[in-house]
């Protein structure tokens, strides 16, 4: 699927605002309300939250970026930093680059602006946020902050009031009234500070969604027909499971909380053996525990979906931050030869359709599939265009009542054999992780092993994946290759370069990681002489994967960096400039 339909504007503009404060100060609430109000006014945007290691009460920042067209990455720097206090802000500062023309709003009561912030040379404007809050009965500093930002951004009162009403619907009229007054106090205080007008798109009017990638994946799964989920919580994947818990309840599906990931993957295998499209979601540590049983699903040809919301590794790593470093384990992490699928959405919006596609692929080929997203995609709240309906469904090739000897693992042209679902008379067989004959009977013979290995490989090699295998955008003799969430920053970089007249670079963002598609790749790369591979991990996993499975131009370079600092478009532009002139 070529994604050129995505909303791109000739003059895309965006504005980045960071709201920081220690736990309880409500920085995240301020940011969320800001984003929602901007959405009401027709903006696109994202909110990423970055928090300290504390479970509760630690420092936190809401990083909001709003604009007049789809936003798929963090920006290059922040236009406004609003600090309710400076508590432990040094732990977050690397994520909030400021420029000399940025505006810092700080409460003088909270002490001096920290050195690390001062070095930016940004304009500092002191406002007594705490004081102002106290001036309103039950007023809270985060509502003052919202008011300040609303004023700076020219947010319409109607939009702000609408989100406040929704937010405070359960708290009663008085709370709402107080909040609105507090917001107004903030507006008043900021009236002289100048304007950072919101780059507004068309009014949303039901055409947009506000969604995280985790919810988008969950929704895509449900839409494709997932009706059983086994769950073991893990950051940053838990919300996929939590959303599906209620989603399944509403659709007649079922969710079981498992004792661990060994159990959850095997519950999924059992349910899918029973004919029910099944899924689980996890992150690196959980995926590691599922490896043995994923191999069982390959051998016994049980379709299932595992969503891996990647975080920084190795081991427990950094649970709350993104990295693209589970490519290796997803592709290669099985013992024995175990052909299976790996796909990766490359934007929050894409989480819907790629997960939906993943369910379809798993069921169509009776194979386990791993969907690689990451903490950025999974937990970023994003304003997206309402996803169009795609019709990928869970459709499994099953038997009717077989006449004559049923062979579960029969050799067929496609490599996919009709599967008997328990309950079907005459279809009885034993699914087995031992090597087996076409009937499923355990076998130690070389010929049976070869036959079944060929079948397992061919069914995924021969499948027609259509255009959805990658997003290919642009033409030119240079190409940037990437995958997953890194795609967002590259898209923006290439768009900006194009505006600056550089139009010889194409983008190839791989959605189908394995099996490799060498023919499609060659076609997509026709005319390309040099490639730059961009990825967010320490060992250049994508680059090595591409070397192993594709023919790359000799002139190939990799630009990789471990997490958790996300690539910013400006960095990519810098790198591309340097690379072009090398």
């Amino acid at each position: 699927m070529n994604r050129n339909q995505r909303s791109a504007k000739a003059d895309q503009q965006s504005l980045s605002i960071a709201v920081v404060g220690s736990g309880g100060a409500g920085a995240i609430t301020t940011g969320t309300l800001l984003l929602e109000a901007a959405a009401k006014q027709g903006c696109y945007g994202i909110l990423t939250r970055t928090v300290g290691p504390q479970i509760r009460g630690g420092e936190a920042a809401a990083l909001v970026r709003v604009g007049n067209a789809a936003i798929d990455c963090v920006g290059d720097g922040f236009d406004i930093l609003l600090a309710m206090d400076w508590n432990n802000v040094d732990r977050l500062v690397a994520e909030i680059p400021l420029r000399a023309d940025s505006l810092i709003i700080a409460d003088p009561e909270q002490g001096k602006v920290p050195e690390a912030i001062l070095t930016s040379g940004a304009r500092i404007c002191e406002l007594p946020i705490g004081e102002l809050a106290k001036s309103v009965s039950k007023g809270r500093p985060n509502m003052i902050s919202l008011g300040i930002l609303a004023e700076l951004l020219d947010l319409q009162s109607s939009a702000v009031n609408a989100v406040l009403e929704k937010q405070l619907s359960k708290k009663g009229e008085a709370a709402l009234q107080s909040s609105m007054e507090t917001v107004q106090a903030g507006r008043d205080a900021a009236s002289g500070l100048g304007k950072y007008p919101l780059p507004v798109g068309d009014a949303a009017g039901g055409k947009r969604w506000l969604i995280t990638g985790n919810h988008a994946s969950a929704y895509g799964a449900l839409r494709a027909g997932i009706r059983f989920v086994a769950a073991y919580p893990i950051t940053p994947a838990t919300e996929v499971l939590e959303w599906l818990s209620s989603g399944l309840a509403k659709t007649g599906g079922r969710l079981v909380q498992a004792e661990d990931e060994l159990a959850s993957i095997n519950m999924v295998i059992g349910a899918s053996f029973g004919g029910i499209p099944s899924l689980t979601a996890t992150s690196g540590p959980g995926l590691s525990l599922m490896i043995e049983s994923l191999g069982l699903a390959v051998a016994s040809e049980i379709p299932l979906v595992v969503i891996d919301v990647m975080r920084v590794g190795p081991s427990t790593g950094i649970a709350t931050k993104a990295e693209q470093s589970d490519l290796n384990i997803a592709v290669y992490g099985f013992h024995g030869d175990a052909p299976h699928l790996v796909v990766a959405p490359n934007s929050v919006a894409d989480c819907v359709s790629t997960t939906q596609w993943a369910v379809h692929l798993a069921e169509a080929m009776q194979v386990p599939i791993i969907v690689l997203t990451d903490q950025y995609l999974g937990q970023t709240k994003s304003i997206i265009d309402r996803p169009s309906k795609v019709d990928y469904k869970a459709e499994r090739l099953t038997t009717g009542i077989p006449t004559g000897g049923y062979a579960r693992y029969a050799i067929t042209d496609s490599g996919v054999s009709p599967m008997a679902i328990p309950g079907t008379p005459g279809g009885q067989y034993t699914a087995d992780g031992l090597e087996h004959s076409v009937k499923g009977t355990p076998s130690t013979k070389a010929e049976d092993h070869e036959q079944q290995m060929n079948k397992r490989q061919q069914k995924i090699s021969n499948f027609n994946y259509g255009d959805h295998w990658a997003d290919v955008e642009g033409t030119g003799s240079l190409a940037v290759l990437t995958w997953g969430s890194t795609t967002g920053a590259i898209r923006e970089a290439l768009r900006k370069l194009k505006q600056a007249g550089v139009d010889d670079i194409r983008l190839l963002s791989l959605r189908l990681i394995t099996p490799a598609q060498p023919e499609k790749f060659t076609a997509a790369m026709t005319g390309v002489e040099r490639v730059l591979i961009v990825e967010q991990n320490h060992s250049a996993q994508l680059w090595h994967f591409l070397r192993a499975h594709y023919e790359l131009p000799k002139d190939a370079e990799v630009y990789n960096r471990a997490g958790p600092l996300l690539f910013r478009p400006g960095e990519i532009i810098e790198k591309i400039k340097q690379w072009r002139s090398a």
Partner: protein
Amino acid sequence: MSMTAETVNKPTPADYRSGIKPIWCPGCGDYSVLLEITKALATLELRSEEVAIISGIGCSSRIPAYSSCYGFHGVHGRALPVATGLKVARPDLTVIATGGDGDGFSIGGNHFLHACRRNVNITYIVMDNQVYGMTKGQASPTTDPDWDSVLTPGGTGIRAFQPLVIALASGANFVARGFAGDPAGTTNMIIEGIRHPGFSFIQILSPCATFRPDQREWRNMVREAPVPFTNDPSRAANRIMTDDGFNIGILYRGDRPPYETGRKGTPRDIDTIAEEFSV
């Protein structure tokens, strides 16, 4: 066995056997257990296509393929989660999990605990031979501490795991101990276990002819439990903790309602659900 409309006769145990010849050693207790399971299925007149037998890895775990039911021969230690997923997703099926003492209590111990707690309506049959048969004779959790093996010469020194007590302490709803060489009694407890709602656990002493020839003596050691089953778990636990491991019979029948697998909800339109995302 596929029971089409024409099959009107009462099924026989043989109807529940596949044509595959077991790989077991001559004299292995598992032959008897296979027979007892098929007898129970025949007595219950279950349609073989509506029964699924799920196992892990081990000699005993080979059972599914020897039956004419649907079967799943999974990986070592994970029979119970596979069975759980299947039963929750497909409450209409009769789901039986089978396996060995190593599979169930060593690598699979955690699932055993949680399956007992969760109380899904499945029946778990463990062929306990107090040894790892398939890997050629190492100590399992139920092995006596002084049993000599190459891996643990002179014995493990670790006291034997008490499966029935753990089952009771974790919440299994039906607990029985059988002996492979007691076809009538064991068949009956399998029948009762399948009938009983919730998680039913049946430990069957099933001798390993090859690595535990001493277990030939079991025939002379087992006896019917002196008192009938109770529905008081702590009384049942107390009895088992103080017996010698050779009292056989149904020891406990609980009345906890099984895991609620019937949750349906009125299926709502997916588009309606998605409205929550709309700005």
